[in-house]
C-alpha cells in the first residue's frame, strides 16, 4: 500500500473522531491542539487503525509522545506494511 493511501485512511479516521476542525485534517498538525484528540480518543483511534490495516501497535508506543500527528501514525503504519 502506498504511503499516500495510508495517510488518507488515517486522515479519514481522525476526521471521524475529531471533536472540532474535522473537515480540515492536516497531516502535520498536532492532534490534541487542532482536533481535540485527547489520550482516550487517541487509543480508540489507534485501535481502529489496527483493524483497518491488520496491524498491531507495540504497547510501548501507545503514548501521545509517539503519535501526536497523522504523519507520525502514517510513518509507523508505513514502516510495518512496507519494510
Amino acid at each position: 500500500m502506498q504511503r499516500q493511501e495510508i495517510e488518507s485512511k488515517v486522515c479519514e479516521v481522525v476526521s471521524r473522531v475529531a471533536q472540532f476542525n474535522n473537515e480540515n485534517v492536516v497531516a502535520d498538525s498536532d492532534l490534541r491542539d487542532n482536533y481535540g484528540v485527547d489520550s482516550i480518543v487517541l487509543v480508540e483511534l489507534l485501535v481502529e487503525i489496527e483493524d483497518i490495516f491488520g496491524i498491531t501497535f507495540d504497547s510501548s508506543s501507545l503514548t501521545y509522545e509517539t503519535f501526536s500527528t497523522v504523519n507520525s501514525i502514517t510513518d509507523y503504519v508505513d514502516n510495518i506494511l512496507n519494510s
Partner: protein
Amino acid sequence: MIKQMGNVPRYFEPYVNDCFHNAYSAVLLHMGMNPNIILADYLSFMYDCENGYVGVNYFYRPNTTVEFTEDELNTSLEFVYLPPTTLYSQAGVKEVDIRYRDRVHINMFIEDKPDVAYQRLKELLGNGIPVVAAVDLFYMKYHRAYGKEHGLHCVVFTGYNEEEGFFHLFDKYKLSSSDFDGILPIDEVNLGRMSDNPLPGVNATQKRPVRNLWMEISSDKDFKVTEEKLLNVISESCQRMKGQKEVLGHKCGLDAIDLFSKSLLEKKNEKLDDEKVYWYRVYLNGTLKNISRSRKRFSVFIKEISSLLPQQTVPGLCVSLEEASKHWDICSSIALKLGIRKSLDMIDDLVNQLDIIRELESSIVERLEGYLQGRSLIK
C-alpha cells in the same frame, strides 16, 4: 448587591491531578503562596488487591459521598491539613479554626439548606475571598457535559451580581475540557450545587450528592514554608516507597507495585465480564493516568527545591521522574486498549511496563535516600 474580584490568578497546569487541586491553586496564588510547594505530595503508590483500587497516597475509589473523615483526608500533602467534612449549619465555630500553624487549612463544608450555603458564599465573596466550590457539570452551561452527563467538579467563584442574577466564576481545569471565565445565572449554578449527581458506571443507580460543598482555605499569620518540612516531603516519600510506612493499613511503594503486578498476572485466567472491562477501560485508564501526572508533579517539586539538593543530582532525578511518568502513561493506555479489545494477553505488556517503572522508581528513591543519609536526615 454587586461584588467582584478581578485579581484572582487563573491557574492551570497539566500535571495537576484533579479539579480540586487546580482550583485550590488559584486561591493559594491569590493568598501569595506557591501551589507547587503547598500542594506538593509524597512519591508513593498504593494497591488494594481486595477491591482493585490503586492510588498514590490514598485510594482512588468511586465515592458516593462528599463527606470524609480526618484520617481519609490527611494521608497526603505535607503542608496542608484538612479537617473532617463539616455540616456548616451544625458547625460550632463558623470561622476557620487554625489547628496547625505549619499547615494551610482547607476546611470542606457541606450544607443541605441551599439558602444558607448561598448566603455563606456571598459573605466570603463580599469579604474579598475567592471561593472553591463543587458543582454538577450537568448544570454548567459552558461545559460539554451540560444537560447530558453528571459529574462533580470544582470551580472558583470570584463574585456575584444579585440585581442581574449571575455569578462571576472561572473553571480552568482543561484536563476535563473546561476553560471558562465569565458569568453564569445564579439559579442555574445553585441547581448544580445542590444536585444529587448520579454516578456513571456499571451501577447506574448510585449517586454522589454535591450538598453545596465548598472549601475555605486559610493559614496562621505566621505560617511559613520551612526547609525541614520541604525535606520531610523527600524523607516521607522514601519511607513510603520502601514500604517502611503503612498508609490506611496498606503497604505502599515498591512492594505495592510488585503486588499490583502479581495480582494482574493472576487476572489473566479470569473471565472478563462488564464490571472487569470497566475496571480496565475506565478505572485503571483514569487512575494510572493520575499516577503518571503525580510523577511529573514530583519532578516539579524537585525543581522547586533544587537549591536544597546537590546540583548534580537534580537533572538526573527529573529525567527519571519524567521517564517513570511516561511509563505510567503507557500503562494507562494499555489498560484502555485491553478494555476495548477485551484481550487479557495485554496484561503481560502492562506488567512489563510496571517492571520498568519499578526499576526507575527504585533508583529515584536510592538517590533521594543517599542525599538524606548524607545530611543525616534519615529517620
